[in-house]
């Protein structure tokens, strides 16, 4: 990754131009041609630095409900519990964490009733109860990382 790659990443993480020729627009800001920018973006995708390029929706602004969930899962049941949790489409992140509450996942659903119904189903199938910790307030969500100077 060179200085141009980092500059491109700094622009396209939050400011991907929503225009007919976005790579030409990025190139104009940096003094590169459209094909140079596109070739660099393709290389960054191929290397796995860029996971995807697209829209990240705000669940709240779309009227959906999101929540964080936690469970204490005995070692022997982790595999089966995770398989059940992950089978639900609204589960977007799921991690094993070093804590007595060891499985943590996030869930998004059209409303809280749907969240509760899914959690009840998980508990019914696995026998494991789940903490439902919905957000009261969002203070920050920022998932782009400064590349220049990184």
């Amino acid at each position, binding site marked *: 990754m060179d200085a141009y790659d980092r500059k491109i*990443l700094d622009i*396209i993480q*939050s*400011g*991907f131009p929503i*225009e*007919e*020729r*976005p790579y030409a627009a990025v190139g104009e800001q940096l003094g590169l041609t*459209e*094909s140079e920018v596109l070739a660099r*973006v393709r290389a960054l995708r191929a290397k796995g*630095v*860029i996971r*995807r*390029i*697209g*829209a*990240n*929706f*705000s*669940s709240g*602004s779309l*009227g*959906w*409900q999101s929540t*964080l969930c*936690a469970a204490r899962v005995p070692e022997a049941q982790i595999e089966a519990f*995770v398989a059940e949790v992950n089978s639900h*489409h*609204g*589960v*977007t992140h*799921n*991690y094993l964490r*070093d*804590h007595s*509450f060891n*499985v*943590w*996942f996030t869930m*998004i659903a*059209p*409303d*809280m009733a749907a969240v509760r119904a899914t959690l009840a189903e998980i508990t019914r199938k696995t026998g494991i109860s789940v903490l439902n*910790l919905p*957000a*009261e*307030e*969002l*203070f*920050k*969500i*920022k*998932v*782009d*990382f*400064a*590349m220049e100077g*990184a």
Partner: protein
Amino acid sequence: MSGAKQFTETQRRILALVQGDLPDVPEPFAEVARQAGASQEEVLELVRGMKQRGEIRRFGATLRHQKAGYGSNAMVAWYVDDEDMARMGAFMAARPEISHCYHRVNCMDWPYNLYTMVHAKTPEECAQTVAELARLSGLEEYDVLKSRKEFKKTSMRYF
């Protein structure tokens, strides 16, 4: 609760495409339009409008943090008194190492009510940052929840 926002069939086809990975071509929105059976103008207007209204929080590249050099992270759950919540939320949100910060409900089994995702380049730097956050905030009750294994990480498919 007002419930999920509704879209036309054409809009849903467009959004189903842009919630994934944009076509890897010089004119990606024209290609989205072609696949959705819409005009490029409709695609651009819909995406721009939703971005302006905050329904699209961010439009652009999502990076793999590990490969971008931010290899260590921890979720830290803090207990904050209600009257301090706004101030502590603002304090945490202002920190560049923190990507996500939420006030969440707590319960009998789980006392913590403020959550921060802390990112760093190394585990040592991550631990240092957490210690500094604790010292500067004065918060004493907290738990660091380091991830040991990733079971799932996807972007939500709303459409």
